């Protein structure tokens, strides 16, 4: 079976920056490419769309080789970060630019709820509206694969959440490979059937959202996906010794082995402490994030970051002694 989008050793060099070699197979699923700015995400999409030529490697889509083909013959749809709508055309003309007929335009306009915007020029659209039109325009060409370059990143939160929900349903209804590039862990986990974490041009880990978040394979993946507690330690009898503290972890690694312990702030529970048993420390700082509190606890050695519900956070104060319960420590 050679269907879907297949990247084999795809490579591109720009001066000292090198992307790849990237190996990735995207079936009729959504793969989100997650990485910091400058890691090569946009270049990867450009290579697949054919607007940048690869230095090495090969690319197939549904069994056809795309190598060396011009962008217009690839059947790859591309949605840009800012929409890249043609400013001299109305929304309708933008969508119709590559559509097979007016019926298709009206159809997509209904799906993406842009019927009322069709007569406007892009300059008269808000960011979220422009992205809906851009999506419709790309889908109008009936692409065999869909690439999206951070289409939500410049939108305000309420519109971003709503469009993200809709993208989730839209992708579910499409039966083409989707590659979605983002620097936002939340977009990556919400939209991706699988996540590929990209770091300085290289794929560092590929897996389901749960696998990547719960079992990161490197410190970079851990930190970039929001695992803020990353401690260097040593395996001891009853867990992992970090600084002057022992984290309770069940592991079959030999005592004395050097390990890195990862722990997501959301997996820490904090309770008021009235004695010294277990992981006890003092609240160093607490920050009101609205739907919860971010609490930094001084354990005497390392600092522990925890996110706790509103009620739990409100009852804490700087200096208060707390006991931390940590269940989901992951060892690298």
């Amino acid at each position, binding site marked *: 079976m050679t269907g879907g989008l297949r990247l084999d050793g795809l490579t591109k060099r720009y001066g000292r920056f090198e992307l790849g070699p990237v190996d990735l197979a995207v079936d009729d699923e959504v793969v989100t490419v997650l990485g910091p700015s400058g890691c090569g995400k946009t270049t990867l999409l450009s290579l697949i769309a054919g607007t940048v030529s690869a230095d090495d490697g090969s690319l197939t889509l549904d069994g056809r080789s795309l190598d060396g083909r011009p962008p217009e013959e690839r059947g790859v749809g591309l949605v840009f970060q800012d929409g*890249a709508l043609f400013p001299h055309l109305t929304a309708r003309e933008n969508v119709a630019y*590559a559509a097979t007929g007016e019926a298709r335009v009206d159809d997509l306009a209904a799906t993406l709820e842009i019927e009322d915007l069709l007569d406007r020029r892009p300059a008269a659209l808000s960011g979220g509206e422009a992205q809906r039109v851009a999506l419709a325009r790309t889908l109008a060409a009936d692409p065999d694969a869909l690439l999206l370059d951070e289409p939500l990143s410049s939108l305000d939160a309420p519109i971003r959440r709503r469009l993200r929900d809709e993208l989730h349903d839209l992708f579910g209804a499409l039966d083409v490979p989707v590659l979605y590039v983002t620097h936002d862990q939340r977009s990556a986990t919400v939209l991706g059937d699988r996540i590929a974490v990209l770091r300085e041009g290289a794929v560092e880990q590929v897996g389901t959202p749960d696998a990547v978040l719960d079992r990161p394979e490197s410190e970079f993946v851990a930190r970039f996906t929001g695992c803020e507690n990353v401690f260097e330690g040593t395996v001891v009898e009853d867990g992992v010794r970090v600084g002057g503290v022992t984290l309770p972890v069940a592991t079959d690694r030999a005592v004395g082995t050097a390990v890195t312990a990862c722990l997501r702030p959301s997996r820490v529970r904090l309770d008021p402490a009235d004695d010294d048993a277990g992981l006890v420390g003092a609240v160093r700082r607490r920050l009101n994030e609205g739907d919860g509190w971010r609490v930094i606890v001084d354990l005497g050695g390392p600092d522990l970051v925890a996110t706790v519900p509103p009620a739990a956070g409100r009852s804490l104060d700087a200096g208060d002694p707390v006991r931390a319960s940590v269940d989901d420590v992951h060892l690298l």
Partner: protein
Amino acid sequence: PRSDWLTVALALGGLLLLYYLAPLVSLFLSAPPGAVAASLTEATVVNAATTSIVAATLSTLLGTAFGLPLAYWLARADTRWTDAVLAAVVLPLVLPPTVGGVVLLTVVGPNTLLGDVAAAAGLPLTRSLAGVVLAQTFVASPFVVVTAKAAFEGVDRALEHASRSLGKGRLTTARRITLPLAAPGVLAGVTLAFARAMGEFGATMMLAYYPRTMPVQIWVSFVSLGLDAAYPVAIVLVVVSALALLVLD
């Protein structure tokens, strides 16, 4: 001290503006309207205007047809060659027009291979309309290239990528996306080239003293009859320049 400095700066700029505008106003005050109007129908004026307009139109068309593809290539190519090519385009812009005339004469003048062949074929390249067009094209066409290049660069490349990824080829993309968006800048370049061609004097004097263009006629009238005789053609050219300015804005 802040306002002192501002005052000095504005005064300097104001003086320069005055230097640009006062002579123009003075021209219209100096030229007796009746006499100017009367001489507008004289054969010398009409002939010069016809020559200038026909030649400038031809050289602008040539410059646009040959220059736009070059401008697009300069705007989009990724090679190191673009710098060298751009230098070759800018050179005629910084080259004195009389020198342009000299270098053209070494290629198309009498006693040159090209000049002799063309003259034998009945299309002399000097002292002819063809000579005027050649001179004007040399000095004016770089304006099309340089200005259109900037206009093409101003079109976001992502828009071209979007068009291509929507299944449209290079030519369709250029026609439906790039050219419409670059049109104002391209028009500005074409207008600048036309204005430069209308005003061409130095290279024309070397290549084609006859048939007389308007700038040459101004010189001839001035030398043979005095400043007053130069007013009618000068006023026509001021009006043409003002119209060009309107298009540019």
